[in-house]
């Protein structure tokens, strides 16, 4: 990180319209959450509320449990061998374990996009249709829903004329936006993004960042990232994690100011954490 960038991270951002987290209604409430792989404890006793709108970035060095936390929010980590957790996670007021005996219902409300763009080996249209099939929509309804989601993901203009083309023929950046559009088609209340720009070029990354900011105005977005500059550009709320614990959290203004604790300030300025 250059000295110029370091300085820019610490510049106090002008106070915007963001509300303090305590004033926001929560879309996700995490209480006493600990996550394990076998006997190995990855996260211990984490408590966190996530606002019902806006972008919450989980920031921190590798191996601190950010992705593990994200993967438990829609129970996708259930698919991982030896993964377990204790504590309680509520989404939109409902316990993700007790109130969702059918996990597919939970996952339809909490969309997720992964680090690696992953399109299915079929057409753009069929990719979009994948999550919609259970709704048994008419062809016209499905087409309209798909069009709406592609527009929302700022991809419609680029793929409108090639909906039947193989999704794999899109660029990586377009593929990742297709993954976001595919998740949006179900109109989720929460969207989980696990380092969505980690494997794509800077220009596509900026397009996705713009998209994330725009989506954050209507739904709750939880994004895992290592990229401090990106966090500064997109986050409304930042949660800094290290060694399976929350070191500090607060609004973007607070987290990129000089008022943070030493550990946070060291990480943001030097991308280093000595936890």
């Amino acid at each position: 990180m250059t000295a110029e960038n370091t300085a820019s991270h610490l510049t106090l951002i002008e106070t915007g319209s963001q509300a303090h987290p305590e004033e926001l209604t929560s879309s996700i409430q995490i209480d006493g959450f600990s996550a394990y792989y076998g006997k190995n404890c990855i996260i211990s006793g984490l408590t966190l509320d996530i606002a019902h709108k806006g972008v919450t970035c989980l920031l921190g060095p590798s191996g601190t449990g950010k992705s593990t936390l994200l993967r438990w929010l829609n129970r996708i980590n259930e698919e991982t061998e030896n993964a377990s957790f204790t504590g309680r996670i509520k989404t939109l007021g409902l316990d993700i374990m007790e109130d969702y005996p059918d996990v597919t219902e939970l996952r339809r409300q909490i969309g997720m996009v992964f680090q690696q763009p992953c399109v299915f080996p079929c057409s753009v249209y069929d990719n979009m249709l994948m999550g919609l099939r259970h709704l048994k929509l008419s062809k016209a309804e499905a087409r309209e829903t798909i069009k709406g989601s592609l527009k929302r993901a700022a991809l419609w203009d680029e793929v409108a004329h090639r909906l039947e083309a193989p999704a794999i023929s899109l660029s990586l950046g377009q593929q990742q936006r297709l993954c976001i559009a595919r998740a949006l088609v179900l109109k989720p209340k929460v969207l989980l993004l696990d380092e969505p720009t980690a494997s794509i070029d800077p220009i596509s990354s900026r397009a996705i960042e713009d998209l994330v900011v725009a989506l954050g105005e209507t739904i709750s977005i939880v994004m895992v990232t290592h990229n401090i500059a990106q966090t500064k550009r997109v986050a409304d709320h930042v949660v800094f994690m290290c060694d399976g614990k929350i070191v500090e959290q607060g609004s973007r203004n607070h987290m990129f100011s000089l008022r943070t604790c030493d550990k946070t300030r060291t990480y943001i300025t030097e991308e280093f954490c000595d936890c």
Partner: protein
Amino acid sequence: MFRAVNKRHFAEKCFALTTRLSLLLCAAVLLFLLGSILFQGIGAMSLEFLFTPAREFGKSGGIFYQLFGSLLIVLIGALLVLPLAFGTALFRNAYNSNSVIARVMDQSLYALNAIPSVTYGIFGLIFFVNFLGAGISWFVGSVILAIMMLPTVTLSTSQAMAAIPKIYNENAAALGLAKKDIIRRVTLPQSFHGVVTGLLISLARAIGETAPIMFIATAFSGVKVPNSLVEPVSTLPTHILELAQQSTDPQALQNAWGASLTLILLAAIFSGLALFLRRRLNREGRSS
């Protein structure tokens, strides 16, 4: 130092030469075998030979009922093995999350694959023919061939399923797809080439097998199209065996070579089809 480099170069050249010689030896054996069968059998080959029933214990006539019997036994065997192999591979990759069970399953399948084919025949004779009283039946032959094909088809399907990147399943699950939908929309289309390849390769092997079906499913002569499940058929391998026992008769020997060539061609068709479909389905899987 210079001598050491020369010595290493010499050793590398010797090693490369040994690998080339191994390849040449394998190719020579294969070509000699195929060439002999082609050279000796081509004289007997004709449409009449393929579509005429055998006469005089195979000394004259063709191989129509033997060809029919072989195809019937292996194709019904394939139909029987397909759901079983697919189900086993699906459990191994989609429903079982315990890696120990997966390893045990794999080792068991490899062990099953290594069992000599005559053992399957003896098992069929003891269990189906004697214990269940099924008698000599082409259907029992199909069942035994299905059991014999099971490891190959299961392993091929399982490997194709295991090769699907985990991220596909996670992405599908994140879209709220139920397990059965993930299997239908993601796993099946992307592992279909493995099912087809395994099946055709095991068909190519099974059609040439004599030992497992000799005691339980075939008669050496005098059988036509079976009217029920519990009748024997005649097959190409047993027919070749019978003709080989009359090798002093040039006509019988000629027909044995012809039947062998037919058998080789059938195996080649199944193997070639497996290769073609694997490439095609792989390409479709990537780009469709």
